């Protein structure tokens, strides 16, 4: 337990996290690109066409991982917001707010690819399907969190307020999903199941799972980069941040110049 709390505190300290993130972020990006490329090859070239949907189903290899990520990022944000509010840990505040833009990006991708998939399958760009509707509400929740975060000037207060909203949203999210499902059965709308009850073929499954792994890694890559910025912003006067700022040159990208300073 002592060892655990020790590491928790050590990792929670901004300079330590910054150093760790600088090392880890390129690995996340690199692995994500490699795994993503393999998954793409598997999904677009190796996997057979679906007997019902033909090749249109190949959107699944990005649509479903993006949908998973949209939820994962929200839960990640809410967990960090909770830690930040209860234990007032600076790092968690920054982590929570850093995961919001990427989460919103994945939600947006889910909606657009879902719509692009729906057009050939349902003959319409948009349908008030339970999942799409919940996803739309999720996007609004993300935008609300981001909007609130940018509307407050004090960075730490903004992170706490937006984190609080994220927590309210996480309570709301299952209720939204439940209510939208209920509403959908009431209306018996144009619900067409994208994924039928048919079992998914192994040749289709492994690229999907690999892509999901790649998107997770990509998420952590951008998360680490954003968190470094956020920590720098709220810790600007501290020694570790000052030395990074002093080492950076005007006009140059941060990443290039920091390497000279260790």
């Amino acid at each position: 337990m002592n060892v655990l709390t020790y590491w928790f505190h050590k990792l929670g300290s901004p300079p330590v996290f910054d150093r760790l993130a600088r090392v880890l972020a390129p690995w996340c990006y690199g692995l994500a690109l490699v795994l993503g490329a393999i998954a793409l090859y598997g999904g677009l070239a190796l996997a057979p066409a679906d007997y019902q949907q033909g090749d249109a189903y190949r959107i699944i290899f990005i649509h479903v991982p993006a949908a998973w990520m949209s939820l994962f990022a929200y839960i990640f944000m809410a967990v960090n917001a909770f830690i930040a509010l209860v234990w007032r840990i600076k790092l968690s505040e920054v982590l929570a707010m850093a995961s919001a833009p990427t989460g919103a990006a994945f939600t947006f991708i889910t909606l657009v690819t879902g719509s692009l998939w729906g057009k050939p399958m349902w003959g319409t760009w948009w349908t008030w399907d339970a999942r799409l509707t919940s996803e739309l509400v999720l996007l609004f929740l993300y935008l609300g969190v981001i909007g609130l975060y940018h509307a407050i000037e004090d960075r730490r207060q903004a992170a706490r307020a937006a984190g609080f909203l994220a927590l309210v949203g996480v309570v709301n999210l299952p209720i939204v999903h439940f209510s939208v499902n209920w509403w959908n059965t009431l209306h018996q709308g144009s619900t067409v199941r994208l994924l039928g009850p048919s079992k998914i073929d192994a040749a289709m499954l492994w690229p999907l799972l690999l892509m999901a792994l790649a998107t997770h890694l990509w998420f952590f890559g951008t998360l680490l980069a954003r968190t470094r910025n956020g920590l720098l912003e709220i810790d600007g006067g501290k020694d570790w941040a000052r030395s990074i700022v002093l080492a950076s040159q005007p006009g140059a990208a941060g990443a290039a110049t920091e390497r000279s300073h260790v």
Partner: protein
Amino acid sequence: MSPLTEISRPPLLEARGLAFARNDEPVFGPLDFVLHTGEVVLIEGDNGSGKTTLLRVLSGLLTPTEGEIRLHGAPLTLDLLSPQVALLSHANGLKPELTALENLRFAAGLHGLRHGISPPTALAGVGMDGYADVPTRRLSAGQKKRVALARVLLAPVALWLLDEPYANLDPEGIGLVNRLLENHAHRGGAALITSHGAYAYTSGTPRSIPLHARPARDLTGEGRPRGDGLPGHSLGDDAGLSPARPGTPP
């Protein structure tokens, strides 16, 4: 203010290494001071030196970035604090649609009532007895300030935190504030007041905590002793005025 009296009873209010920062920009501190019962202390400082913020931190509305506040020797929490302080801030907390008396009655309901005083007598105490039924919006700025002071007077608390109590007041009103403070100190209360220094509290033992715009070296951390964040660096020392510091040998 001999060291002996400091030891014999815990001070009403004690700040150790108290600092507040916004967006990593220090607003004030680190500050050390104590406030004993029967004392009225003036917080002096230029515009933007953090006087208002200091009072908001001491009232519990803001959480200090560093340091601690002790009340009667116990570390501060909002629950412990709120029954013991009355805050007069720039926004005087009066509803313009309500009359002076209605405002005071509400305050009495919310915060409770000091023994031996009632909303009408408090209003009379600040020289506003003729205005009980006038909606507050029709009062002048100075008159509103008096009503707000009456609200502070009503509250059954020992510690007054008054932000610019002299602002907008005529000379007679300034005398009134000094009288109120004096009586409160005699009752065993204490007060921290801010002012630009124009009308200082004159009676009793005047003592002040200078809160100047922070010297820039503290912002960058250069020239500051190692182990930043530890209490002990008092701005009061810089200015040559020495607010009592606990733990420092006399």
